[in-house]
Protein backbone atom coordinates (compact mmCIF):
# COMPACT_ATOMS: atom_id res chain seq x y z
CA UNK A 1 0.00 0.00 0.00
CA UNK A 2 2.63 2.51 1.10
CA UNK A 3 4.72 1.69 -1.93
CA UNK A 4 1.87 2.58 -4.21
CA UNK A 5 1.16 5.77 -2.34
CA UNK A 6 4.75 6.88 -2.81
CA UNK A 7 4.55 5.94 -6.46
CA UNK A 8 1.50 8.01 -7.14
CA UNK A 9 2.85 11.03 -5.24
CA UNK A 10 5.99 10.91 -7.27
CA UNK A 11 3.80 10.15 -10.26
CA UNK A 12 2.74 13.67 -11.02
CA UNK A 13 6.33 14.71 -11.59
CA UNK A 14 8.13 11.63 -12.94
CA UNK A 15 7.24 10.04 -16.27
CA UNK A 16 5.51 6.66 -16.22
CA UNK A 17 8.09 5.00 -18.46
CA UNK A 18 11.55 6.28 -19.15
CA UNK A 19 14.10 4.68 -21.48
CA UNK A 20 17.56 6.19 -21.74
CA UNK A 21 20.12 4.93 -24.23
CA UNK A 22 18.66 1.43 -24.39
CA UNK A 23 20.53 -1.05 -26.59
CA UNK A 24 19.82 -4.70 -27.17
CA UNK A 25 21.32 -7.46 -29.27
CA UNK A 26 20.10 -10.95 -30.23
CA UNK A 27 23.48 -12.60 -30.58
CA UNK A 28 25.23 -10.33 -33.05
CA UNK A 29 22.04 -8.75 -34.31
CA UNK A 30 21.57 -5.21 -32.98
CA UNK A 31 17.77 -5.07 -32.41
CA UNK A 32 17.43 -1.88 -30.38
CA UNK A 33 19.77 1.02 -31.04
CA UNK A 34 20.09 3.82 -28.57
CA UNK A 35 16.43 4.17 -27.67
CA UNK A 36 15.37 7.30 -25.79
CA UNK A 37 11.72 7.44 -24.86
CA UNK A 38 9.68 9.15 -22.20
CA UNK A 39 6.03 8.37 -21.62
CA UNK A 40 4.08 10.58 -19.24
CA UNK A 41 1.16 9.46 -17.18
CA UNK A 42 -2.04 9.39 -19.21
CA UNK A 43 -0.17 9.59 -22.47
CA UNK A 44 -1.14 7.36 -25.41
CA UNK A 45 1.65 6.31 -27.72
CA UNK A 46 1.38 4.35 -30.94
CA UNK A 47 4.50 2.66 -32.26
CA UNK A 48 4.60 1.57 -35.87
CA UNK A 49 7.17 0.43 -38.36
CA UNK A 50 8.02 -2.41 -40.71
CA UNK A 51 8.26 -5.94 -39.33
CA UNK A 52 11.58 -6.67 -37.69
CA UNK A 53 12.10 -3.04 -36.76
CA UNK A 54 12.24 -3.85 -33.05
CA UNK A 55 8.94 -2.31 -31.97
CA UNK A 56 7.69 -5.41 -30.14
CA UNK A 57 11.10 -5.89 -28.56
CA UNK A 58 10.98 -2.29 -27.36
CA UNK A 59 7.75 -2.63 -25.42
CA UNK A 60 8.67 -6.13 -24.19
CA UNK A 61 11.75 -4.61 -22.57
CA UNK A 62 9.53 -2.40 -20.42
CA UNK A 63 8.22 -5.38 -18.40
CA UNK A 64 11.46 -7.32 -18.85
CA UNK A 65 10.05 -10.06 -21.04
CA UNK A 66 13.16 -9.17 -23.02
CA UNK A 67 16.37 -8.17 -21.36
CA UNK A 68 18.20 -5.05 -22.52
CA UNK A 69 21.98 -5.06 -22.34
CA UNK A 70 22.71 -1.36 -22.20
CA UNK A 71 20.93 1.71 -20.97
CA UNK A 72 18.39 2.45 -18.32
CA UNK A 73 14.67 1.74 -18.06
CA UNK A 74 12.63 3.28 -15.26
CA UNK A 75 8.98 2.30 -14.82
CA UNK A 76 6.86 4.35 -12.44
CA UNK A 77 9.97 5.61 -10.70
CA UNK A 78 11.38 2.10 -10.22
CA UNK A 79 14.56 1.37 -12.15
CA UNK A 80 14.52 -2.00 -13.91
CA UNK A 81 17.42 -4.18 -12.78
CA UNK A 82 18.22 -7.88 -12.67
CA UNK A 83 16.57 -8.17 -9.27
CA UNK A 84 13.68 -10.63 -9.58
CA UNK A 85 11.61 -9.01 -6.82
CA UNK A 86 11.88 -5.65 -8.50
CA UNK A 87 11.01 -7.07 -11.91
CA UNK A 88 7.91 -8.68 -10.42
CA UNK A 89 7.00 -5.41 -8.71
CA UNK A 90 7.21 -3.58 -12.03
CA UNK A 91 5.23 -6.28 -13.83
CA UNK A 92 2.40 -5.91 -11.35
CA UNK A 93 1.95 -2.28 -12.41
CA UNK A 94 2.37 -2.95 -16.15
CA UNK A 95 -0.40 -4.71 -18.07
CA UNK A 96 0.30 -6.43 -21.34
CA UNK A 97 -1.88 -7.62 -24.23
CA UNK A 98 -0.34 -10.02 -26.72
CA UNK A 99 -0.84 -10.60 -30.41
CA UNK A 100 -1.93 -14.19 -29.80
CA UNK A 101 -3.98 -13.36 -26.67
CA UNK A 102 -2.13 -15.98 -24.58
CA UNK A 103 -5.16 -16.77 -22.47
CA UNK A 104 -4.71 -19.81 -20.24
CA UNK A 105 -6.64 -22.53 -22.11
CA UNK A 106 -7.05 -24.82 -19.08
CA UNK A 107 -8.92 -22.17 -17.09
CA UNK A 108 -12.29 -20.55 -17.66
CA UNK A 109 -12.53 -16.91 -18.66
CA UNK A 110 -13.36 -15.97 -15.08
CA UNK A 111 -10.47 -18.00 -13.67
CA UNK A 112 -8.13 -16.39 -16.19
CA UNK A 113 -9.08 -13.02 -14.75
CA UNK A 114 -8.98 -14.07 -11.08
CA UNK A 115 -5.75 -16.03 -11.05
CA UNK A 116 -3.26 -13.25 -10.69
CA UNK A 117 -5.29 -11.07 -8.30
CA UNK A 118 -5.70 -14.13 -6.06
CA UNK A 119 -2.14 -15.47 -6.19
CA UNK A 120 -0.09 -12.32 -6.68
CA UNK A 121 -2.17 -9.73 -4.85
CA UNK A 122 -3.57 -12.32 -2.39
CA UNK A 123 -7.15 -11.15 -2.78
CA UNK A 124 -9.88 -13.42 -1.47
CA UNK A 125 -11.63 -15.38 -4.22
CA UNK A 126 -14.95 -13.65 -3.85
CA UNK A 127 -13.45 -10.19 -4.16
CA UNK A 128 -11.32 -11.24 -7.13
CA UNK A 129 -14.36 -12.73 -8.88
CA UNK A 130 -16.53 -9.69 -8.28
CA UNK A 131 -13.83 -7.45 -9.68
CA UNK A 132 -13.24 -9.77 -12.64
CA UNK A 133 -16.95 -9.72 -13.49
CA UNK A 134 -16.87 -5.94 -13.37
CA UNK A 135 -14.05 -5.77 -15.90
CA UNK A 136 -15.57 -8.50 -18.06
CA UNK A 137 -18.74 -6.43 -18.18
CA UNK A 138 -16.72 -3.42 -19.23
CA UNK A 139 -15.35 -5.33 -22.22
CA UNK A 140 -18.89 -6.66 -22.77
CA UNK A 141 -18.17 -10.33 -22.38
CA UNK A 142 -19.51 -11.07 -18.89
CA UNK A 143 -21.99 -13.63 -20.23
CA UNK A 144 -19.07 -15.83 -21.39
CA UNK A 145 -17.37 -15.87 -17.97
CA UNK A 146 -17.85 -19.61 -17.37
CA UNK A 147 -16.62 -20.69 -20.80
CA UNK A 148 -13.13 -21.78 -21.73
CA UNK A 149 -11.04 -19.56 -24.04
CA UNK A 150 -11.15 -22.22 -26.77
CA UNK A 151 -14.90 -21.70 -27.05
CA UNK A 152 -14.61 -17.98 -27.85
CA UNK A 153 -13.87 -16.13 -31.08
CA UNK A 154 -10.56 -14.32 -31.52
CA UNK A 155 -12.05 -10.92 -30.83
CA UNK A 156 -13.73 -12.17 -27.68
CA UNK A 157 -10.50 -13.79 -26.49
CA UNK A 158 -8.59 -10.57 -26.98
CA UNK A 159 -11.19 -8.63 -24.99
CA UNK A 160 -10.87 -11.18 -22.20
CA UNK A 161 -7.10 -10.72 -22.32
CA UNK A 162 -7.56 -6.98 -21.87
CA UNK A 163 -9.91 -7.53 -18.94
CA UNK A 164 -7.42 -9.98 -17.41
CA UNK A 165 -4.72 -7.31 -17.51
CA UNK A 166 -7.01 -4.65 -16.07
CA UNK A 167 -7.82 -6.87 -13.09
CA UNK A 168 -4.31 -6.16 -11.81
CA UNK A 169 -5.02 -2.39 -11.85
CA UNK A 170 -2.04 -1.59 -14.04
CA UNK A 171 -0.74 1.95 -14.29
CA UNK A 172 0.33 1.46 -17.87
CA UNK A 173 -0.85 -0.92 -20.59
CA UNK A 174 1.34 -2.37 -23.32
CA UNK A 175 -0.36 -3.63 -26.48
CA UNK A 176 1.75 -5.84 -28.75
CA UNK A 177 -0.08 -5.90 -32.10
CA UNK A 178 -3.39 -6.70 -30.41
CA UNK A 179 -5.40 -6.91 -33.65
CA UNK A 180 -2.91 -8.54 -36.01
CA UNK A 181 -4.07 -12.09 -35.41
CA UNK A 182 -7.77 -11.26 -35.71
CA UNK A 183 -10.20 -11.78 -38.55
CA UNK A 184 -11.08 -8.42 -40.10
CA UNK A 185 -14.64 -8.35 -38.75
CA UNK A 186 -13.37 -8.66 -35.17
CA UNK A 187 -10.82 -5.89 -35.19
CA UNK A 188 -13.33 -3.19 -34.41
CA UNK A 189 -14.65 -4.77 -31.20
CA UNK A 190 -11.13 -4.86 -29.79
CA UNK A 191 -10.23 -1.35 -30.95
CA UNK A 192 -13.46 -0.03 -29.39
CA UNK A 193 -12.38 -1.40 -26.02
CA UNK A 194 -8.96 0.18 -26.43
CA UNK A 195 -10.45 3.56 -27.39
CA UNK A 196 -12.69 3.36 -24.33
CA UNK A 197 -9.66 2.65 -22.17
CA UNK A 198 -7.78 5.59 -23.64
CA UNK A 199 -10.72 7.90 -22.89
CA UNK A 200 -10.53 6.89 -19.24
CA UNK A 201 -6.98 8.19 -19.11
CA UNK A 202 -4.97 4.95 -19.12
CA UNK A 203 -1.32 5.31 -20.07
CA UNK A 204 -0.90 3.19 -23.19
CA UNK A 205 1.86 2.05 -25.51
CA UNK A 206 0.47 0.31 -28.58
CA UNK A 207 2.40 -1.43 -31.29
CA UNK A 208 -0.15 -1.50 -34.08
CA UNK A 209 -0.71 -0.94 -37.75
CA UNK A 210 -4.23 0.39 -37.20
CA UNK A 211 -3.62 3.91 -38.40
CA UNK A 212 -7.23 4.93 -37.82
CA UNK A 213 -6.74 4.09 -34.16
CA UNK A 214 -3.49 6.06 -34.11
CA UNK A 215 -5.20 9.11 -35.56
CA UNK A 216 -8.11 9.14 -33.13
CA UNK A 217 -6.38 8.11 -29.92
CA UNK A 218 -2.64 8.70 -29.95
CA UNK A 219 -0.96 11.69 -28.37
CA UNK A 220 2.24 10.75 -30.16
CA UNK A 221 3.11 8.37 -32.99
CA UNK A 222 6.56 6.80 -33.10
CA UNK A 223 8.02 5.32 -36.27
CA UNK A 224 10.75 2.72 -35.88
CA UNK A 225 13.02 1.12 -38.44
CA UNK A 226 16.05 -1.13 -37.99
CA UNK A 227 15.96 -0.82 -34.23
CA UNK A 228 15.91 2.95 -34.15
CA UNK A 229 13.29 5.56 -33.46
CA UNK A 230 13.22 7.39 -36.78
CA UNK A 231 10.42 9.84 -36.21
CA UNK A 232 8.24 10.90 -33.33
CA UNK A 233 5.38 13.36 -33.66
CA UNK A 234 1.76 14.16 -32.88
CA UNK A 235 -0.54 12.17 -35.18
CA UNK A 236 -1.64 15.02 -37.40
CA UNK A 237 1.81 16.22 -38.49
CA UNK A 238 3.04 12.62 -38.46
CA UNK A 239 0.54 11.48 -41.07
CA UNK A 240 0.20 14.70 -43.05
CA UNK A 241 3.77 15.85 -43.09
CA UNK A 242 6.22 13.01 -42.38
CA UNK A 243 9.78 14.29 -42.22
CA UNK A 244 11.90 11.22 -42.87
CA UNK A 245 12.03 9.50 -46.21
CA UNK A 246 11.63 6.08 -44.63
CA UNK A 247 8.51 7.23 -42.81
CA UNK A 248 7.08 8.55 -46.05
CA UNK A 249 7.78 5.25 -47.77
CA UNK A 250 6.25 3.21 -44.93
CA UNK A 251 3.14 5.36 -44.77
CA UNK A 252 2.66 5.22 -48.52
CA UNK A 253 2.93 1.43 -48.33
CA UNK A 254 0.35 0.92 -45.62
CA UNK A 255 -2.03 3.76 -46.49
CA UNK A 256 -1.64 3.69 -50.24
CA UNK A 257 -3.84 0.76 -51.15
Amino acid at each position, binding site marked *: MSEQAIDSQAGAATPMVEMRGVNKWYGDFHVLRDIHLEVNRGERIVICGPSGSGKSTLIRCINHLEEHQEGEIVVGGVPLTQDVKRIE*QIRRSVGMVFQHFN*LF*PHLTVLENCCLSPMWVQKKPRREAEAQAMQYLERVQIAEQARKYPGQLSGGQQQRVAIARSLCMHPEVMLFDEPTSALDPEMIKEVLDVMVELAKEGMTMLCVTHEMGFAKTVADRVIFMDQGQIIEENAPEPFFNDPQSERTQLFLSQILGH
Partner: protein
Amino acid sequence: MTHNETVIPERPAPRLTVGPLAWLRANLFSGPVNSLFTLLGLYLLYLLLTPAIQWALIDADWIGTSRDDCSREGACWVFVNARLGQFVYGLYPGGEIWRINLMFATFAALLAWLAIPRLPFKRWVAPVTLVAFPVFAYVLLYGGHFGLPVVETHRWGGLSLTLILATVGMVAALPIGIVLALGRRSQMPIVRSVCVVFIEFWRGVPLITILFMASVMLPLFLPTGMTIDRLVRALIGITLFQSAYMAEVVRGGLQAIPRGQEEAAAALGMGYWQRMGLIVLPQALKMMIPGIVNTFISLFKDTTLVMIIGLFDLLGIVQAALSDSRWLGFAVEGYVFAALMFWIFCFSMSRYSQYLEKKLHTGHKR
Protein backbone atom coordinates in the same frame (compact mmCIF):
# COMPACT_ATOMS: atom_id res chain seq x y z
CA MET B 1 -25.47 -11.94 -60.07
CA THR B 2 -27.21 -14.62 -58.05
CA HIS B 3 -29.41 -14.07 -55.10
CA ASN B 4 -30.97 -16.67 -52.82
CA GLU B 5 -33.29 -16.07 -49.88
CA THR B 6 -34.69 -19.57 -49.34
CA VAL B 7 -33.02 -21.79 -46.76
CA ILE B 8 -32.47 -25.37 -47.88
CA PRO B 9 -34.23 -27.61 -45.31
CA GLU B 10 -32.22 -30.11 -43.27
CA ARG B 11 -32.60 -33.79 -44.20
CA PRO B 12 -31.10 -37.05 -42.90
CA ALA B 13 -28.00 -38.61 -44.48
CA PRO B 14 -28.61 -41.33 -47.10
CA ARG B 15 -29.47 -44.63 -45.45
CA LEU B 16 -26.60 -46.63 -46.90
CA THR B 17 -23.94 -44.45 -45.17
CA VAL B 18 -25.05 -44.85 -41.54
CA GLY B 19 -25.81 -47.81 -39.28
CA PRO B 20 -24.05 -51.11 -38.56
CA LEU B 21 -24.63 -52.63 -41.99
CA ALA B 22 -23.10 -49.62 -43.70
CA TRP B 23 -20.19 -49.79 -41.26
CA LEU B 24 -19.59 -53.44 -42.15
CA ARG B 25 -19.74 -52.65 -45.82
CA ALA B 26 -17.41 -49.68 -45.57
CA ASN B 27 -14.84 -51.25 -43.29
CA LEU B 28 -14.84 -54.99 -43.93
CA PHE B 29 -16.38 -55.68 -47.32
CA SER B 30 -15.61 -52.60 -49.39
CA GLY B 31 -14.30 -54.63 -52.34
CA PRO B 32 -13.48 -58.20 -53.42
CA VAL B 33 -9.92 -58.08 -52.03
CA ASN B 34 -11.03 -56.61 -48.70
CA SER B 35 -13.82 -59.16 -48.41
CA LEU B 36 -11.33 -61.94 -49.00
CA PHE B 37 -8.99 -60.64 -46.30
CA THR B 38 -11.87 -60.21 -43.88
CA LEU B 39 -12.91 -63.84 -44.35
CA LEU B 40 -9.32 -65.01 -44.12
CA GLY B 41 -8.86 -63.04 -40.90
CA LEU B 42 -11.99 -64.52 -39.39
CA TYR B 43 -10.78 -68.01 -40.27
CA LEU B 44 -7.39 -67.40 -38.63
CA LEU B 45 -9.10 -66.10 -35.51
CA TYR B 46 -11.21 -69.24 -35.45
CA LEU B 47 -8.11 -71.44 -35.79
CA LEU B 48 -6.38 -69.64 -32.91
CA LEU B 49 -9.20 -69.08 -30.49
CA THR B 50 -10.97 -72.44 -30.51
CA PRO B 51 -8.10 -74.47 -29.07
CA ALA B 52 -7.27 -71.71 -26.59
CA ILE B 53 -10.83 -71.55 -25.30
CA GLN B 54 -11.05 -75.33 -25.34
CA TRP B 55 -7.90 -75.58 -23.19
CA ALA B 56 -8.52 -72.70 -20.82
CA LEU B 57 -12.23 -73.02 -20.20
CA ILE B 58 -13.99 -76.05 -21.60
CA ASP B 59 -11.50 -78.84 -20.89
CA ALA B 60 -10.11 -77.22 -17.72
CA ASP B 61 -10.20 -78.50 -14.15
CA TRP B 62 -11.27 -75.94 -11.60
CA ILE B 63 -11.98 -77.66 -8.30
CA GLY B 64 -9.73 -79.80 -6.15
CA THR B 65 -6.77 -79.72 -3.80
CA SER B 66 -3.98 -81.71 -5.44
CA ARG B 67 -2.67 -82.61 -8.89
CA ASP B 68 -4.73 -85.79 -8.84
CA ASP B 69 -7.82 -83.67 -9.28
CA CYS B 70 -6.54 -82.61 -12.71
CA SER B 71 -7.74 -85.52 -14.82
CA ARG B 72 -8.90 -83.72 -17.93
CA GLU B 73 -6.88 -82.62 -20.91
CA GLY B 74 -7.20 -78.85 -20.44
CA ALA B 75 -5.69 -76.40 -18.02
CA CYS B 76 -5.29 -77.30 -14.36
CA TRP B 77 -6.51 -74.20 -12.53
CA VAL B 78 -6.47 -76.23 -9.34
CA PHE B 79 -2.79 -75.37 -9.12
CA VAL B 80 -3.47 -71.62 -9.22
CA ASN B 81 -6.36 -72.05 -6.81
CA ALA B 82 -4.30 -73.93 -4.30
CA ARG B 83 -1.48 -71.41 -4.43
CA LEU B 84 -3.60 -68.27 -4.72
CA GLY B 85 -2.89 -67.16 -1.16
CA GLN B 86 0.83 -67.28 -1.79
CA PHE B 87 0.54 -65.62 -5.18
CA VAL B 88 -1.25 -62.68 -3.62
CA TYR B 89 0.36 -62.39 -0.18
CA GLY B 90 3.75 -64.05 -0.58
CA LEU B 91 5.07 -65.63 2.59
CA TYR B 92 3.29 -63.19 4.86
CA PRO B 93 2.15 -65.08 7.99
CA GLY B 94 -1.38 -66.39 7.56
CA GLY B 95 -2.74 -64.81 10.72
CA GLU B 96 -1.50 -61.36 9.74
CA ILE B 97 -2.87 -61.21 6.23
CA TRP B 98 -5.67 -58.91 7.35
CA ARG B 99 -3.01 -56.22 7.63
CA ILE B 100 -2.27 -56.36 3.89
CA ASN B 101 -5.98 -56.45 3.14
CA LEU B 102 -6.65 -53.45 5.37
CA MET B 103 -3.79 -51.55 3.79
CA PHE B 104 -5.01 -52.17 0.24
CA ALA B 105 -8.63 -51.51 1.16
CA THR B 106 -7.64 -48.14 2.63
CA PHE B 107 -5.53 -47.36 -0.40
CA ALA B 108 -8.30 -48.32 -2.80
CA ALA B 109 -10.76 -46.13 -0.88
CA LEU B 110 -8.40 -43.13 -0.98
CA LEU B 111 -7.69 -43.66 -4.67
CA ALA B 112 -11.36 -43.97 -5.48
CA TRP B 113 -12.02 -40.78 -3.57
CA LEU B 114 -9.41 -38.99 -5.66
CA ALA B 115 -10.46 -40.58 -8.94
CA ILE B 116 -14.21 -39.93 -8.73
CA PRO B 117 -14.78 -36.29 -9.65
CA ARG B 118 -17.92 -35.74 -7.58
CA LEU B 119 -16.50 -36.38 -4.14
CA PRO B 120 -15.55 -33.29 -2.09
CA PHE B 121 -12.55 -32.46 0.18
CA LYS B 122 -10.01 -33.54 -2.46
CA ARG B 123 -7.53 -30.97 -1.20
CA TRP B 124 -7.43 -32.83 2.13
CA VAL B 125 -7.57 -36.35 0.77
CA ALA B 126 -4.62 -35.84 -1.58
CA PRO B 127 -2.04 -34.95 1.10
CA VAL B 128 -3.40 -37.68 3.36
CA THR B 129 -2.85 -40.19 0.55
CA LEU B 130 0.62 -38.91 -0.21
CA VAL B 131 1.97 -38.27 3.28
CA ALA B 132 -0.03 -39.92 6.04
CA PHE B 133 -0.95 -43.07 4.17
CA PRO B 134 2.60 -44.33 3.41
CA VAL B 135 3.49 -44.03 7.10
CA PHE B 136 0.30 -45.84 8.05
CA ALA B 137 0.97 -48.53 5.44
CA TYR B 138 4.53 -49.06 6.61
CA VAL B 139 3.58 -49.34 10.27
CA LEU B 140 0.74 -51.69 9.38
CA LEU B 141 2.76 -53.97 7.12
CA TYR B 142 6.07 -54.01 8.94
CA GLY B 143 4.62 -53.94 12.42
CA GLY B 144 6.56 -53.38 15.61
CA HIS B 145 4.19 -50.75 16.95
CA PHE B 146 0.78 -50.91 18.58
CA GLY B 147 1.26 -54.57 19.46
CA LEU B 148 1.60 -55.65 15.85
CA PRO B 149 4.21 -58.39 15.46
CA VAL B 150 7.09 -57.50 13.13
CA VAL B 151 6.93 -59.08 9.66
CA GLU B 152 10.33 -58.86 7.98
CA THR B 153 10.28 -57.64 4.39
CA HIS B 154 11.73 -60.89 3.05
CA ARG B 155 8.40 -62.48 3.89
CA TRP B 156 6.53 -59.97 1.76
CA GLY B 157 5.82 -61.12 -1.73
CA GLY B 158 3.43 -61.92 -4.52
CA LEU B 159 0.96 -59.53 -6.03
CA SER B 160 0.98 -57.37 -2.92
CA LEU B 161 4.73 -56.82 -3.22
CA THR B 162 4.35 -56.01 -6.93
CA LEU B 163 1.71 -53.43 -6.09
CA ILE B 164 3.80 -51.92 -3.30
CA LEU B 165 6.86 -51.62 -5.53
CA ALA B 166 4.89 -50.17 -8.42
CA THR B 167 2.85 -47.72 -6.37
CA VAL B 168 5.78 -46.38 -4.38
CA GLY B 169 7.80 -46.12 -7.59
CA MET B 170 5.07 -44.20 -9.39
CA VAL B 171 4.17 -41.87 -6.56
CA ALA B 172 7.81 -41.01 -5.87
CA ALA B 173 9.05 -40.90 -9.45
CA LEU B 174 6.53 -38.37 -10.75
CA PRO B 175 7.45 -35.44 -8.45
CA ILE B 176 11.17 -36.18 -8.71
CA GLY B 177 10.79 -36.36 -12.48
CA ILE B 178 9.00 -33.00 -12.57
CA VAL B 179 11.71 -31.35 -10.50
CA LEU B 180 14.42 -32.87 -12.73
CA ALA B 181 12.64 -31.72 -15.88
CA LEU B 182 12.27 -28.18 -14.56
CA GLY B 183 15.92 -28.26 -13.53
CA ARG B 184 17.00 -29.37 -16.96
CA ARG B 185 15.22 -26.37 -18.49
CA SER B 186 16.57 -23.98 -15.85
CA GLN B 187 18.60 -20.89 -16.72
CA MET B 188 21.03 -21.66 -13.91
CA PRO B 189 23.99 -23.60 -15.34
CA ILE B 190 24.81 -25.62 -12.21
CA VAL B 191 21.25 -26.74 -11.59
CA ARG B 192 20.92 -27.64 -15.25
CA SER B 193 24.13 -29.67 -15.42
CA VAL B 194 23.34 -31.57 -12.23
CA CYS B 195 19.96 -32.54 -13.65
CA VAL B 196 21.35 -33.48 -17.05
CA VAL B 197 24.04 -35.67 -15.50
CA PHE B 198 21.54 -37.34 -13.16
CA ILE B 199 19.05 -38.05 -15.92
CA GLU B 200 21.60 -39.31 -18.41
CA PHE B 201 23.30 -41.51 -15.84
CA TRP B 202 20.18 -43.29 -14.63
CA ARG B 203 18.68 -43.53 -18.09
CA GLY B 204 21.83 -45.01 -19.53
CA VAL B 205 22.07 -47.92 -17.12
CA PRO B 206 19.79 -50.98 -17.31
CA LEU B 207 17.43 -51.36 -14.37
CA ILE B 208 18.77 -54.82 -13.71
CA THR B 209 22.25 -53.36 -13.18
CA ILE B 210 20.88 -50.76 -10.81
CA LEU B 211 19.12 -53.43 -8.77
CA PHE B 212 22.31 -55.48 -8.64
CA MET B 213 24.33 -52.49 -7.56
CA ALA B 214 21.74 -51.61 -4.95
CA SER B 215 21.88 -55.06 -3.43
CA VAL B 216 25.56 -55.92 -3.86
CA MET B 217 27.57 -52.72 -4.07
CA LEU B 218 25.63 -50.35 -1.84
CA PRO B 219 26.36 -52.29 1.36
CA LEU B 220 30.09 -51.92 0.61
CA PHE B 221 29.80 -48.15 0.83
CA LEU B 222 27.80 -48.13 4.03
CA PRO B 223 29.56 -48.00 7.40
CA THR B 224 29.84 -51.39 9.03
CA GLY B 225 26.86 -52.36 11.06
CA MET B 226 24.55 -50.16 9.06
CA THR B 227 22.19 -51.99 6.79
CA ILE B 228 19.39 -50.81 4.59
CA ASP B 229 16.55 -53.18 4.05
CA ARG B 230 16.68 -54.99 0.73
CA LEU B 231 13.19 -53.87 -0.21
CA VAL B 232 14.05 -50.24 0.53
CA ARG B 233 17.15 -50.52 -1.63
CA ALA B 234 15.11 -51.93 -4.49
CA LEU B 235 12.56 -49.15 -4.05
CA ILE B 236 15.23 -46.46 -4.16
CA GLY B 237 16.76 -47.99 -7.28
CA ILE B 238 13.43 -48.29 -9.08
CA THR B 239 12.36 -44.78 -8.10
CA LEU B 240 15.57 -43.09 -9.26
CA PHE B 241 15.57 -45.08 -12.49
CA GLN B 242 11.96 -44.24 -13.27
CA SER B 243 12.28 -40.60 -12.28
CA ALA B 244 14.94 -40.16 -14.96
CA TYR B 245 12.50 -41.51 -17.54
CA MET B 246 9.69 -39.45 -16.09
CA ALA B 247 11.86 -36.33 -16.32
CA GLU B 248 12.21 -36.76 -20.05
CA VAL B 249 8.49 -37.35 -20.50
CA VAL B 250 7.76 -34.22 -18.49
CA ARG B 251 10.35 -32.21 -20.42
CA GLY B 252 8.70 -33.20 -23.67
CA GLY B 253 5.38 -31.94 -22.32
CA LEU B 254 6.90 -28.69 -21.07
CA GLN B 255 8.39 -28.02 -24.48
CA ALA B 256 5.01 -28.36 -26.12
CA ILE B 257 3.57 -25.43 -24.14
CA PRO B 258 3.85 -22.23 -26.20
CA ARG B 259 6.24 -19.65 -24.73
CA GLY B 260 3.43 -17.12 -24.73
CA GLN B 261 1.79 -18.90 -21.82
CA GLU B 262 4.71 -18.33 -19.50
CA GLU B 263 5.14 -14.80 -20.82
CA ALA B 264 1.52 -13.96 -20.14
CA ALA B 265 1.85 -15.31 -16.61
CA ALA B 266 5.05 -13.34 -16.10
CA ALA B 267 3.43 -10.18 -17.43
CA LEU B 268 0.75 -10.62 -14.77
CA GLY B 269 3.44 -10.49 -12.08
CA MET B 270 3.62 -14.19 -11.22
CA GLY B 271 6.85 -15.62 -9.88
CA TYR B 272 8.63 -18.69 -11.26
CA TRP B 273 6.87 -21.29 -9.11
CA GLN B 274 3.46 -19.73 -9.70
CA ARG B 275 4.06 -19.66 -13.45
CA MET B 276 5.11 -23.30 -13.41
CA GLY B 277 2.58 -24.58 -10.88
CA LEU B 278 -0.49 -22.68 -12.07
CA ILE B 279 0.04 -22.23 -15.79
CA VAL B 280 2.68 -24.40 -17.43
CA LEU B 281 2.56 -27.68 -15.50
CA PRO B 282 -1.23 -28.14 -15.43
CA GLN B 283 -1.32 -27.81 -19.21
CA ALA B 284 1.81 -29.86 -19.76
CA LEU B 285 0.74 -32.68 -17.42
CA LYS B 286 -2.55 -32.95 -19.25
CA MET B 287 -0.73 -33.47 -22.52
CA MET B 288 1.73 -35.85 -20.90
CA ILE B 289 -0.90 -38.27 -19.60
CA PRO B 290 -0.25 -40.85 -22.34
CA GLY B 291 3.50 -40.63 -21.79
CA ILE B 292 3.23 -40.77 -18.02
CA VAL B 293 0.89 -43.75 -18.07
CA ASN B 294 3.18 -45.43 -20.56
CA THR B 295 6.06 -45.02 -18.12
CA PHE B 296 3.89 -46.24 -15.24
CA ILE B 297 2.92 -49.35 -17.17
CA SER B 298 6.50 -50.17 -18.04
CA LEU B 299 7.47 -49.54 -14.40
CA PHE B 300 4.72 -51.89 -13.27
CA LYS B 301 6.10 -54.64 -15.46
CA ASP B 302 9.72 -53.83 -14.65
CA THR B 303 9.08 -54.61 -10.99
CA THR B 304 9.39 -58.27 -11.96
CA LEU B 305 13.15 -57.69 -12.16
CA VAL B 306 13.42 -57.53 -8.36
CA MET B 307 13.38 -61.31 -8.63
CA ILE B 308 17.12 -61.19 -9.31
CA ILE B 309 17.90 -59.67 -5.93
CA GLY B 310 15.83 -62.26 -4.16
CA LEU B 311 12.53 -60.50 -3.71
CA PHE B 312 9.52 -62.55 -4.72
CA ASP B 313 7.09 -60.40 -6.62
CA LEU B 314 4.09 -61.93 -8.39
CA LEU B 315 6.10 -63.48 -11.19
CA GLY B 316 8.86 -64.59 -8.81
CA ILE B 317 6.48 -66.36 -6.50
CA VAL B 318 4.69 -68.05 -9.40
CA GLN B 319 8.03 -69.27 -10.64
CA ALA B 320 8.99 -70.51 -7.19
CA ALA B 321 5.73 -72.41 -6.96
CA LEU B 322 6.44 -74.10 -10.30
CA SER B 323 9.47 -75.83 -8.84
CA ASP B 324 7.39 -77.37 -6.07
CA SER B 325 7.67 -81.12 -6.62
CA ARG B 326 3.97 -81.63 -5.88
CA TRP B 327 3.02 -79.35 -8.74
CA LEU B 328 5.61 -80.00 -11.43
CA GLY B 329 4.48 -79.49 -15.01
CA PHE B 330 1.96 -76.69 -14.58
CA ALA B 331 4.17 -73.87 -15.82
CA VAL B 332 1.74 -72.73 -18.52
CA GLU B 333 -1.09 -72.25 -16.03
CA GLY B 334 1.19 -70.32 -13.69
CA TYR B 335 2.47 -68.00 -16.37
CA VAL B 336 -0.97 -67.47 -17.89
CA PHE B 337 -2.24 -66.47 -14.47
CA ALA B 338 0.66 -64.06 -13.91
CA ALA B 339 0.23 -62.57 -17.37
CA LEU B 340 -3.49 -62.12 -16.80
CA MET B 341 -2.92 -60.32 -13.49
CA PHE B 342 -0.37 -57.98 -15.05
CA TRP B 343 -2.64 -57.36 -18.00
CA ILE B 344 -5.61 -56.48 -15.80
CA PHE B 345 -3.66 -53.84 -13.89
CA CYS B 346 -1.95 -52.36 -16.94
CA PHE B 347 -5.16 -52.28 -18.94
CA SER B 348 -7.03 -50.53 -16.11
CA MET B 349 -4.33 -47.87 -15.96
CA SER B 350 -4.59 -47.37 -19.68
CA ARG B 351 -8.38 -47.04 -19.57
CA TYR B 352 -8.25 -44.58 -16.70
CA SER B 353 -5.75 -42.46 -18.57
CA GLN B 354 -8.05 -42.32 -21.58
CA TYR B 355 -10.91 -41.25 -19.34
CA LEU B 356 -8.72 -38.56 -17.76
CA GLU B 357 -7.66 -37.23 -21.14
CA LYS B 358 -11.27 -36.85 -22.20
CA LYS B 359 -12.29 -35.26 -18.95
CA LEU B 360 -9.50 -32.70 -18.91
CA HIS B 361 -10.00 -31.67 -22.51
CA THR B 362 -11.00 -28.00 -22.59
CA GLY B 363 -11.03 -27.18 -26.26
CA HIS B 364 -8.24 -26.26 -28.60
CA LYS B 365 -4.89 -25.00 -27.47
CA ARG B 366 -3.36 -21.53 -27.51
